[in-house]
């Protein structure tokens, strides 16, 4: 249970639909796909997937070289999204440098691109003599969080959770708990990741990456669909500015939404395969944290990446708790799977679904897999009041996470 009320007053997004939450929502509401062919993947021996959801609308040169030199793409995405979130919330230098504002931003790994470049050079002659002074700042696990803090002048706490696909859901949850216990008043939180063939390859070798739609990229991924064939990897950043309600009211900030529940748990049954009972436990814990019953939830935003194991287990878990009535959709059909960024990109969209009073459907869901049929799938935009949303993210490594958002009243 959150001891103090925690609200969202700012959001930022770097997605395949461009920069900003407005661009994100435009893509989602227009049922566009952010997935494109990536010809470079075809040149990699053993890589069968040829598609990805790449971030657009980003100009790294906006960031001064002095800061940019310590950044790979993931930190660029996180920084621009944080600047937008702070601007939306009306948070400036006074709050950023107050020590009462912290950063909770994670990524799956440090920059895979920088690591590749370093080892390619290093392995050529076993020499460190060409190693740049800023290399470490690209590859350290807290690269995004630290770079954001450097650019924005943040003097509060720094947290850089890393739990692959659960990263940003955890980043938000842990940030909410920090605010709820009075340790910080505001937190810039979320996740970022940059596309690299290593990510696609990781899923490809597990037979979990989409490869049947290489010539029709907008048709994949297909969460819950009988013809789905796996994940499409993506990139970007989603950032939420969380704030103690009393702080937001004192500043006169526009309050976008409230975070009322969070849970995360470990599934020691398998490092790779999700388990419905463990997923269900995580959702139940989030409901308990928010003091809610399943019938209080108006919509469930699923993790659903379009893998066989994940979609079926999640539907089973959702069905166990919520039954066949609660509307469910996944935004991976539009956005692909932005890994550490996926949770907060999707949470930003959930905030907008509450504000705009509508539900966004699962793109590419045409024929529901019978094994995913125990829940109510959203297959077209539904206009209706939405008060409370539960959002899931489940990660390789057996890390589950759920967040509950509620309209601020």
């Amino acid at each position, binding site marked *: 249970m959150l001891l103090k009320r925690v609200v969202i007053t700012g959001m930022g997004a770097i997605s395949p639909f461009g920069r900003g939450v407005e661009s994100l929502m435009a893509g989602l509401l227009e049922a566009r796909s952010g997935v494109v062919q990536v010809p470079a993947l075809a040149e990699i021996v053993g890589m069968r997937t040829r598609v990805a959801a790449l971030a657009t609308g980003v100009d790294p040169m906006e960031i001064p*070289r*002095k800061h940019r*030199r310590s950044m790979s793409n993931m930190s660029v995405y996180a920084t621009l999204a944080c600047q937008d979130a702070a601007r939306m919330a009306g948070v400036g230098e006074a709050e950023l440098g107050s020590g009462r504002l912290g950063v909770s931003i994670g990524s799956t790994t440090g920059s895979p691109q920088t690591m590749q470049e370093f080892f390619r050079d290093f392995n050529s002659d076993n020499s460190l*003599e*060409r*190693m*740049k*002074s*800023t290399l470490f700042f690209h590859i350290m696990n807290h690269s995004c969080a630290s770079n954001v803090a450097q650019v924005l002048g943040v003097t509060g706490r720094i947290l850089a959770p890393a739990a692959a696909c659960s990263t940003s859901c955890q980043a938000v949850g842990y940030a909410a708990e920090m605010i709820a216990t009075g340790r910080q008043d505001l937190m810039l939180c979320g996740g970022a990741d940059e596309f690299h063939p290593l990510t696609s390859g990781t899923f490809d070798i597990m037979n979990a990456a989409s490869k049947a739609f290489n010539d029709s990229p907008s048709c994949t991924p297909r969460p819950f669909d009988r013809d789905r064939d796996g994940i499409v990897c993506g990139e970007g950043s989603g950032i939420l500015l969380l704030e103690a309600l009393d702080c937001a009211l004192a500043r006169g900030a526009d309050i976008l939404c409230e975070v009322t529940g969070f849970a995360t748990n470990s599934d020691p049954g398998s490092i790779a395969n999700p388990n419905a009972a463990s997923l269900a436990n995580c959702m139940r814990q989030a409901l308990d944290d928010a003091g809610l019953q399943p019938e209080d939830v108006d919509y469930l935003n699923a993790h659903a990446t379009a893998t066989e194991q994940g979609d079926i287990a999640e539907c089973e878990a959702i069905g166990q708790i919520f039954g066949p009535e609660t509307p469910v959709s996944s935004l991976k059909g539009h956005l692909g799977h932005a890994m550490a960024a996926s949770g907060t990109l999707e949470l930003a969209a959930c905030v907008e679904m509450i504000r705009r009073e509508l539900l966004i459907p699962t793109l590419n869901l045409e024929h529901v897999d019978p094994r995913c049929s125990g829940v109510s799938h959203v297959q077209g935009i539904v206009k209706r009041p939405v008060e409370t949303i539960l959002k899931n993210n489940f990660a390789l490594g057996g890390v589950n996470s759920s967040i509950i958002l509620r309209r601020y009243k």
Partner: protein
Amino acid sequence: MTDQQIVEQINRSLAEEFEFDIEEMTPETTLFQDMGLDSLDVVDLVIVLETAFGMKIREEEAIRKIVTLGDIHNFVIAKKRQTENA
């Protein structure tokens, strides 16, 4: 390489690495104050010069005394000539 070619190569390499306007680079330009470099940049500056001219200079004492772009020009020219005459 002539001295002028060396100077132009240095300026091109540093302009590319540190995003300087090459038109604003003069021998009197100071590295820290005018160009805004710091201790991290100096590490990379040495790598840029070593790569551009195929020489090892990291341990050179003279590097620590460099203040202006002109000092770099003179240092590299002297080092090149020293190498050629060795």
